[in-house]
């Protein structure tokens, strides 16, 4: 079946020249967009038009375009990664939009994710949280055989589910408090569920939460919006585990 072509759509985009610029919305018309094309392909068409007109193309983050790198972002029509579930923006298709629609595109909005240009935000804060404890320390020398470390099926599954986090920041973007709890919870959980992560578990929970607070992310109020918008459907059960890990670590301090 041939794809339907949207004859004309309107794209209302946040334009901001630099981190210091105040920024404003600009609306562009895009013609003849196939509903079979991806959202970012539509953005490419729009940018191609802008370049041909001698205008500055819209800056937005993207890399693998297959939903695994965590680079693309965009807050589309009031939703992180747009109007679909368990996908990143690069996996969003134009069939989710209709003829003549005005699509509003904003960058992730959080004090800890400052805008670099247009729709690109600086997510270095996530790197800083990871550097504060999202790792296991391994001695040099002979590598132990992975299969000799017994791990229960349930534990390995839960660890893998948490490890699916790609660090895109949709949780922060969608949270009414700009809280990074789902991200931190995923990182703490996937290591806490495995024997290799046990050694540094207490220090990890303490340091990552302290770093998260220091960087100005908000607190979690358990609305659950993060889990609904997460492209990897990471459960807020991980947040309960993080709370548990953190409380135990603080008591043991």
């Amino acid at each position, binding site marked *: 079946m041939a794809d339907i072509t949207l004859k004309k759509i309107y794209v209302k985009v*946040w334009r901001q020249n630099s981190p210091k610029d105040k920024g404003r*919305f600009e609306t562009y018309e895009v013609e003849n967009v196939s509903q079979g094309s991806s959202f970012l392909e539509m953005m490419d068409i729009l940018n191609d038009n802008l370049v041909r007109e001698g205008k500055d193309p819209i800056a937005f983050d993207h890399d693998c375009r297959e939903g695994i790198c965590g680079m693309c972002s965009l*807050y589309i*029509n*009031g*939703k992180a990664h747009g109007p679909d579930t368990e996908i990143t923006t690069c996996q969003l298709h134009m069939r989710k939009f209709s003829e003549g629609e005005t699509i*509003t595109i*904003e960058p992730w*909005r*959080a*004090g*800890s994710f400052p805008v670099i240009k247009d729709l690109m935000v600086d997510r270095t804060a996530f790197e800083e949280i990871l550097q504060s404890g999202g790792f296991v320390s391994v001695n040099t020398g002979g590598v132990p055989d992975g299969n000799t470390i017994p791990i229960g099926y349930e534990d390995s599954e839960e660890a893998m589910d948490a490890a699916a986090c790609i660090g895109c920041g949709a949780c922060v973007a*969608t949270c*009414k*408090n*700009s*809280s990074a*709890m789902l991200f931190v919870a995923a990182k703490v959980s996937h290591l806490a569920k495995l024997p290799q992560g046990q050694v540094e578990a207490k220090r990890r929970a303490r340091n990552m*939460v*302290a770093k*998260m*607070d220091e960087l*100005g*992310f*908000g*607190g*979690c*109020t*358990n*609305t*659950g*919006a993060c889990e*609904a*918008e997460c492209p990897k459907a990471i*459960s*807020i*059960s991980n*947040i*309960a*585990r*993080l*709370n*548990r*890990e*953190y*409380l135990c670590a*603080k*008591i043991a*301090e």
Partner: protein
Amino acid sequence: MSNFLTASIGKKFVMSVTGLFLVVFIAVHLALNLMLILDDSGDLFNMAAHFMATNPAIKIMEPVLALGFIIHIVWSLWITVQNMKARPVKYAKQDLKNSSSWASRNMLILGSLVLVFLVMHIMHFFWKIKVTGSPLLEEVTVMQGGVHVHMENAYALVASLFKSNALYSVLYIAGAILLGMHITHGFWSAFHTIGWNNKIWRKRLEVVALIYAIVIAVGYSIIPLYFLIKF
């Protein structure tokens, strides 16, 4: 335990513990209030009120309860201000209706409205009984375990307000419903924050939270409705 109370999870922990404490209080309060409709002579309610007013354990719990309310309110404001600061530039368009419940996003509004009700409620009853007094509170004698006991007529104070003031009854019902909505999120969220939750328990806690919220909202609403219909 350094910095625990100022850390994001620590602040939430304080909200959870005080919240769960208040959840227990409102159940006890409801149990006593239901005595209002079980005995139209007022003796049952007066005996219950007399017991609460004279029991030493309750005397100790009274300031603890006040502290519970104050901490829950002050911490909520502290957390909310910090959370609002975390997003200096707001979204032009934000659609959260499918990803989170309205109550969960508006706990401050619900809590504030409950607080307005609470202040009014304290002025109408607690303040009159404990501080200013009221002619309605004139002592009555109730047969209790074969002896006559003198006590304040708390029933007259409460029942007369419900009987004479339909507007107050409506506000009372509104307060009960707002409190119920606050609990639908607060109850399970408190367990989540103290770490007592996982994929299985979440469903259980959410169901218990909903049932508890309905019991509270309906339970408190029955009292003014009873007086409105019967008198």
